[in-house]
């Protein structure tokens, strides 16, 4: 009898845990609809029929799987979703990983400096150019070699110099390298980054990346670093987002 009561109690606790997960995923906090950073958006917020917020951190491996696939198919995304389906997309860049892993000195510095550089590039007017450039660079230097901050990576990314994130040379039009470096070193965009990261922390409930596409909300991105495969997975998510629009 006692054992049966114990087993029932255990089953109840297990059931409650899963109910908590499901309740949490069904009732996500509502994101702020005001644009956070104009330079990190695609489409027109005023005439949009669909709204897609993508919470990310440049040092987050699964965010970058999605971001690299997006970058390689950016023209397809702009044509099919932004223009035809009137999607407004905003990348909400954070340094949340610095807070998630406070004891990993390298990750804290990289997460913060990469995000600062992102906001600085946005201030210079070509965030998307810089973003594509840094994603390619990180993929070539780390992810393609199995180096990264994911649970299965062979090796962690070491602490990188500020120059790693700002050394664009002539590769990205409209970005002045010296000015970008100065902006990151002087932490000119720190308050913007800190503000947006704090707001993100209140929204996300399942780790990064975190997607809010109309009323479709999903943490995590399932991909395998094969751009076209990842793009197909991303498209399934976009379709789920568009289908979730309440009429």
């Amino acid at each position, binding site marked *: 009898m006692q*054992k*049966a009561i*114990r*087993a029932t109690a*255990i*089953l109840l606790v*297990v059931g409650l*845990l899963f109910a*908590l*997960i*499901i*309740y*949490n*995923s*069904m009732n996500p906090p509502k994101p702020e609809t005001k644009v956070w950073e104009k330079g990190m958006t695609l489409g027109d917020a005023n005439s949009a029929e669909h709204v897609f917020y993508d919470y990310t951190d440049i040092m*987050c*491996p*699964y965010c970058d799987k999605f971001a690299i696939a997006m970058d390689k198919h950016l023209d397809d995304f702009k044509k099919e979703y932004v223009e035809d389906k009137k999607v407004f997309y905003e990348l909400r860049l954070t340094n949340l*990983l610095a*807070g*998630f*892993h*406070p004891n990993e000195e390298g990750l804290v510095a990289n997460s913060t400096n990469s995000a600062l550089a992102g906001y600085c590039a946005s201030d210079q007017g070509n965030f998307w150019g810089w973003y594509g450039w840094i994603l390619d660079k990180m993929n070539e230097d780390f992810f393609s070699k199995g180096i990264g901050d*994911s*649970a*299965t990576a062979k090796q962690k990314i070491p602490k990188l110099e500020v120059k790693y994130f700002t050394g664009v040379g002539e590769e990205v039009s409209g970005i002045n390298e010296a000015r970008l470096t100065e902006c990151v070193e002087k932490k000119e965009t720190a308050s913007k980054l800190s503000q947006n990261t704090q707001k993100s*922390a*209140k929204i*996300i*409930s*399942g*780790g*990064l*990346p*975190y997607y809010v596409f109309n009323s*479709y*909300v*999903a*943490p*995590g*991105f*399932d991909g395998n670093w094969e751009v076209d495969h990842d793009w197909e997975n991303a498209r*399934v*998510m976009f*379709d*789920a*987002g568009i*289908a*979730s629009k309440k009429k």
Partner: protein
Amino acid sequence: MVFRKIGKRVKYFATTALDRAKFSLVSIGFLLKRPAYLLSFLVALFVFLYLLSFFKDGMSNWSLLCSNLPFGSKLNILGQVALKILNNFTDLYGVLIIFMSILQALTVMLLIFTWKSRKKDQAIDGASTGSIGAVFGFVALGCPTCGLSLLTPILTAIAGTGAVAAAEGISRILIILAFILLIYTVIKLGYTSFIAISTNKYKEKKHAKSN
């Protein structure tokens, strides 16, 4: 003197545990030779492999299934998860998933046998410990800060986003606990099954002799 006593106890415990593990392996081997139990093991293995592969990506598959996607797309997602079972053989987490699924399937098979052998108390005991191990496994696998673990939504629901910082440490502890509990359950149920099998064999022999 005290150390000698402790040493003796540890030695006794280790020997008993090892013996029980050996006996449970014998009973597992015996049951796997029976088609009905082999089938229950294989079905349970597939179910656990499927579920663990489904939740390996945290809530992303679940979110897609709950979305307004057409039925065909949802079926496609479910099919993709079945294919992911094969991908498990290529990475470390996949191997953990396979090993955990084998332990869970063995637990189910042994539970069926002990329940049928009228050892319901032991079966309930095994079911309780085994289910805690299984839940720990489900919750902890994946990358907690990457949105690829069920642990993060639980932690954030209880303690807010700040708790994500602790998620990786907790997930490692839970995975270890899951394996310990599942191995303990398999050994315990396996040993009970061994006794039941031996008793049955003895009874059969006695019955044959008396005839």
